[in-house]
């Protein structure tokens, strides 16, 4: 059988080549091998891809026909359109507006503000205040809760910073916050990979602190989240041509390995899954902010075209594609930015479906007063047990999530909620 004149065998080979090429471009880690290029199968695969680049490119076109997950838009070029600073404040207003309405109000940034740094002429710092998702003993809520809870929103914030002051060196600001991951992403967008590496190195002590408190459940949740963000960053850093960035990536991966060894077996991967859900919810929530702001004309200048797709998780990228197809380009980009911040979702995996179920749960919470989520969601995970298999989104723009779920999973709505605990 042929599809568009190409045999299935060739098509599958091309799709496989394209998938490999994409993974290689993002900087891959191979278990049990000291260096990606040192892996025999991998090495052979890469050599074949290098020889057949044109075939891989053709495979990309064919992949579109088959709607294979490997299909993703080609990496776009970053472009920054300066906007007036007051737009940033309007972004803040949009955020607060949603919070004041009391909807799905957990673990989100309460306020985003920009102010002159004072220490450095013409520089800005970003202050982020969260209502708290996971309290972390010994570390300030402002620093760590935000970094755990709202990476997507932080990416937006730093993206805004790039919009406003593309000339400002954000390195110092990044090191001031526990939110360095997202700042580092922003630096990555600027091709400041050396600064990116230094930033990530600066974050390593935080990972160590989190490891110390990893013996409590809250600590574990926080640590798990940090774990996945760190992993995402570290993996991305491996593709850098800057020695500092590569060194940072190696150090982080090394730290992760040590952290994994001391992880409390009493709290297995559900904490990671849990944070994955929070992550997705935040991303969609962030997209929702942008939808609202766009509708009000507040973010018309929000045109940061990122090159984050290569770093992102598949599902979030697909959500981004889907949003764009629905005529919501800003939200689509927002989803992609958020996608770059976690190693959370992949394909049809269960956690993804549960994450979307969680969003529905929050939507339901807003619609009929039932509390499925709330702050306790991330503190002990118990709220997840109450997520219904099917809920109705009643929360304004979150209808698109239901549509997405219906389109993606059809009649196979999430049913395996019990698998969480």
């Amino acid at each position, binding site marked *: 059988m042929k599809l568009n004149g190409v045999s299935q065998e060739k098509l599958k080979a091309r799709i496989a080549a394209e998938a490999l090429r994409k993974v290689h471009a993002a900087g891959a880690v191979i278990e049990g091998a000291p260096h*990606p290029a040192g892996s025999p199968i991998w090495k052979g695969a890469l050599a074949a891809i290098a020889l057949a680049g044109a075939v891989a490119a053709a495979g990309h076109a064919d992949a579109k026909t088959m709607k294979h997950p490997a299909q993703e838009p080609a990496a776009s070029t970053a472009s920054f359109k300066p906007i007036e600073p007051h737009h940033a404040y309007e972004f803040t207003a949009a955020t607060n507006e949603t919070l004041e309405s009391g909807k799905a109000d957990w673990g989100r940034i309460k306020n985003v503000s920009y102010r002159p740094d004072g220490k450095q002429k013409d520089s800005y710092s970003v202050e982020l205040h969260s209502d708290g998702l996971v309290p972390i003993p010994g570390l300030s809520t402002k620093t760590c809760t935000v970094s755990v809870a709202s990476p997507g929103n932080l990416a937006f914030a730093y993206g805004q910073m790039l919009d406003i002051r593309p000339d400002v060196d954000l390195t110092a600001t990044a090191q001031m916050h526990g939110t360095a991951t997202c700042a580092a992403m922003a630096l990555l967008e600027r091709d400041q990979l050396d600064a990116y590496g230094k930033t990530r190195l600066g974050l390593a002590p935080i990972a160590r602190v989190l490891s110390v408190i990893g013996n409590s459940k809250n600590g574990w949740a926080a640590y798990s989240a940090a774990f996945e963000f760190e992993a995402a960053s570290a993996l991305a850093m491996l593709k850098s041509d800057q020695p500092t960035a590569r060194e940072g990536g190696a150090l982080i991966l090394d730290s992760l390995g040590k952290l994994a060894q001391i992880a409390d077996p009493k709290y297995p991967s559900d904490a990671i899954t849990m944070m994955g859900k929070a992550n997705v919810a935040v991303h969609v929530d962030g997209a929702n902010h942008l939808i609202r702001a766009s509708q009000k004309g507040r973010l018309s200048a929000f045109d940061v075209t990122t090159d984050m797709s290569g*770093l992102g998780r598949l599902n979030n990228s697909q959500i981004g594609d889907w949003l764009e197809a629905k005529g919501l380009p800003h939200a689509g980009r927002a989803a992609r930015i958020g996608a770059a911040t976690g190693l959370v979702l992949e394909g049809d995996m269960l956690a993804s479906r549960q994450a979307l179920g969680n969003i529905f749960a929050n939507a339901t919470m807003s619609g009929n007063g039932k509390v499925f989520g709330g702050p306790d969601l991330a503190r002990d995970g118990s709220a997840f047990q109450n997520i219904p298999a099917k809920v109705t989104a009643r929360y304004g723009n979150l209808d698109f999530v239901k549509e997405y779920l219906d389109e993606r999973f059809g009649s196979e709505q999430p049913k395996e909620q019990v698998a969480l605990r």
Partner: protein
Amino acid sequence: MQRLEVVMSAAGNMFLVEGTQSFGASWQLTDEFVQILDANGTALAQGPLGPVGRAVLPKLFEIDVIAVGPNGPADLRKVRRAA
């Protein structure tokens, strides 16, 4: 048993196996290994499981298994985690 390599990146995760045809009815993690199983639960391929894999793979459900033959990537099959 065939050798398997786990390749992870922020752009995706996959298992590589040698050959021209991908295979497997499911996959699973053991304490030390990643395994691809047949329909009877017998391991067909196996590769090492390290710290990054321990963090990432438990969160995955379906994964691409790519067969890499003498002419490069030859086949791709989506395999779901064993129940």
